[in-house]
């Protein structure tokens, strides 16, 4: 099958890749770039484990064709941390014990990252609504919601400081 050449920015670096027309973004990230943080939980956009940010928006990388992402800027869990310190979302998921098996965690954090970057005011309700795209079978959701609230607050304080 004919390949498609694409150019994508992933976690700050540009990549020129040759992909099959049917390759999904998750396949390219995991198989070609060895970025296995985004997980496949269902392959049909229902569980949110594969969530990454594309041009600042949360997308389900199992529903985006790699060719559609051509020219785009992608952020995955591996690129979230800038510098020696983990990102406030990562820190909050640790400090709030919002992790159990961890399989949904990268997707949930990336969904929350887009939410925080795109919205100024976050309430527990708006977080619950937004994170409803991410299934979690372990935590009962309470702690991930608290972690996102905490991270949003910490980030706001950072900006104000």
């Amino acid at each position, binding site marked *: 099958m004919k390949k498609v050449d694409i150019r994508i920015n992933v976690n700050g670096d540009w990549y020129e890749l040759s992909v099959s027309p049917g390759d999904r973004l998750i396949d390219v990230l995991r198989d070609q770039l060895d970025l296995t943080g985004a997980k496949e939980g269902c392959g049909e956009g229902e569980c949110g484990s594969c969530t990454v940010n594309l041009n600042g928006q949360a997308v389900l990388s199992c529903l985006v064709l790699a060719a559609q992402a051509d020219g785009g800027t992608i952020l995955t869990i591996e690129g979230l941390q800038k510098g020696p310190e983990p990102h406030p979302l990562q820190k909050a998921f640790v400090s709030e014990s919002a992790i159990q098996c961890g399989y949904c965690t990268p997707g949930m954090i990336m969904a929350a990252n887009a939410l925080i970057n795109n919205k100024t005011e976050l309430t527990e309700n708006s977080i619950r609504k937004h994170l409803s795209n991410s299934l979690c079978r372990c935590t009962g959701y*309470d702690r991930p919601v608290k972690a996102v609230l905490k991270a949003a607050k910490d980030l706001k304080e950072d900006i104000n400081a």
Partner: protein
Amino acid sequence: MPESPIAVGKALQRIDSVDKVTGSAKYAADIKQENMLHAKLLRSPHAHAKVKRIDTSAAEKLAGVRAFATIFDVPKVIEYWFSLRTEEKKKQMFLRDNLVRFIGDPVVAVAADDQATADKALSLIKVEYEPLKALHDPYTAMAEKNIKIHSRGNVAFKANKVYGDIHEGFKNADIIIDNTYRTSKQKHAALEPFGTCIAHYQSNGKLTVHSSTQLPHWSRHYLAGALELPLNKVRVIKPHTGGSFGGRCGLIHGLEVMCSWLSRQTGRPVRMSFTRDEDFMATESRHPMNIKMKTGATRDGILIANEVEIVSDVGGYGTHYIGVIADCLSTGVGLYKIPNYSFTGTAVFTNKSPGGALRGYGNPQMNFAQESQIDIIAEKLRMDPLDLRLKNYRKLGEIDPVLDQEILSNGLQECLEKGAASSGWKQKRRQLPIKGAKKRGIGLSIMLHGTGAGKALPDPAAATVMINADGSVNLVTAAADEGQGNRTVLAQIASETLGIDFDKISVSETDTETTPLDCGTHGSRQAYGGGLAVRAAATEAREKLLAYASNKLGVNEDQLRIKDGAIFETTNSENIILISDLMRQIQIEDMSVCEQVIGSATGVAPAMPGYYGAIFAEVEVDIETGEVKVLKLTSAFDVGRAINPDLVEGQITGGAVMGMGFALTEDLLVQDGHILNSSFTDYRLLRTCDAPEIVPIIVESNEPTGPYGAKGIGEGCMVNVASALSNAIWHATGVRLADLPMTPESILLELAKDEMT
């Protein structure tokens, strides 16, 4: 003066959290190996059929196709580790035949250079089937005389047990409640689909399998048995796992054995990954049960008779069907002191996807029925359901007749009291339901669950603790962490026992090659059984450490204390040596010694202590739509001692929501053997916006046989959510539901019945 704990009872950060938030934690599907092949399964489209012929000739011609493994060659593992006990039983574990027993049963596996080639190869394979009559429900299967799903017949297992005199019991009862309950085919729905492994059979005759199993060591036994290899030629490595909930309590049907077979033929690593659809269609689920229960009580609220008849739908293959029935018996009889108790449990094969272990084992099914019955009795006797339970539960010091052991810790009363106070039980129970379409109610239920397997199953645990020359510690254990955090808990126990700080403890990978025999993670056992092994190993290491220190410091061991990385004389803190200095001296510096301080333990836990819980559920039911909104769950659980309260609370909140799913939305719908809802679109898991306020309450009863008083939590916290919710729905609406899940349709139907009467 007792020393204050350094690790036990503290909400310490789990050891894998940073790996999990940065994306660096590797799960089975994240592992790549050089020269790796990709395998796919061709599955049966028939619920019951004989495979007459498999023609792979066209697929063989496809470039990149490397090997096939068929149902004719590769044995299935059809029993669990109880059968490892004797050679005779072990032989019955492995079944090689030509029958498929459910839609999705593996028929042939193909290994190819890539996924696409494997998929293409599957489409070229021709299978000739002779369809057989499919038996879709257990009653049909029991009545059927000519068609046998397994050669020994369709009844997989039958248990009969009587305590006291059931007829006498009912004769003395003032009130008798008789109902039939039906429970659903719940799926584990772990976020990492069941079924990814990488098998590599190397030229030296050694098989290495990466698999997300809960039971690495038993999986090694199963693979060795199925492939006829010596145990020391099989290595099972468990990477990070995306949730298990009982569904990885052994090998996955058609996965590891098929994959290993393909690798043995090719000498190359082979990876097989099931899709979500395959996970739903062809891996284990909770046994649906029909539970007929007749309960008798005196008018002053003494439970005196309970007659239970369970029919459990095993599906096409068994594994845990005996244990699940046994668990119904032990949790039912164990929880209440009912002198006359008759129990019949029948596990029946049907042509459905296999039933298996799922968080709570048989307890969620049994508890839903029994706790509904108890609530109805309270209602009829106009008693507070809390008082009725307090009056009848089996108390501290009494003998559990099923397990034949004394109850040495029981915090149930405290669970009930704290839960009632926190939820405002007394006041809310008295409040009249709100007028209008939305009715509110509060209900409660209690539960008992066993920690570990006791004498029911072989339940070994082992650990090794090694103190290094710099004073750091390696803890070697096969305890499989599926996400609960049990490796963190075990590190806390090692730290506490040694007196060495938690951050100095490093926990081994979960690898059968380097770890001693451990039963695995099942039955809420790791903090207890695993913890006892770690404590024993750490105690041995501590004793050796103190013996060396005693020699160095010139005082007896009982005069020494360990603190902050040093050992010193209790009455003279200047007589001190750093553990790192002492260890370097004896391991390296003093060439006449060169001994590493190592403590090891292997053995079995002395008991199967019960842990207890009370859940108070508040609901709002819209009687126009039938919709149930869960407002709040207050879950009070007696865990003996919370080694890590943060992780215990994590279990309780997570279990609460999984229990809500079992109660309200989750059920695999099977029609003529076809699963109709094999996706997250159609199988409704609860999401963030469905989760209510959850108040976890930890009660510590200090189990004397447990490490630092600990017993279990993992399963129990989901067990009685459904019964608490059902009892709350009754309180809100007056409707009593006997079937799970309790859907809006079923509530409307019952409300309509009420109106007609």
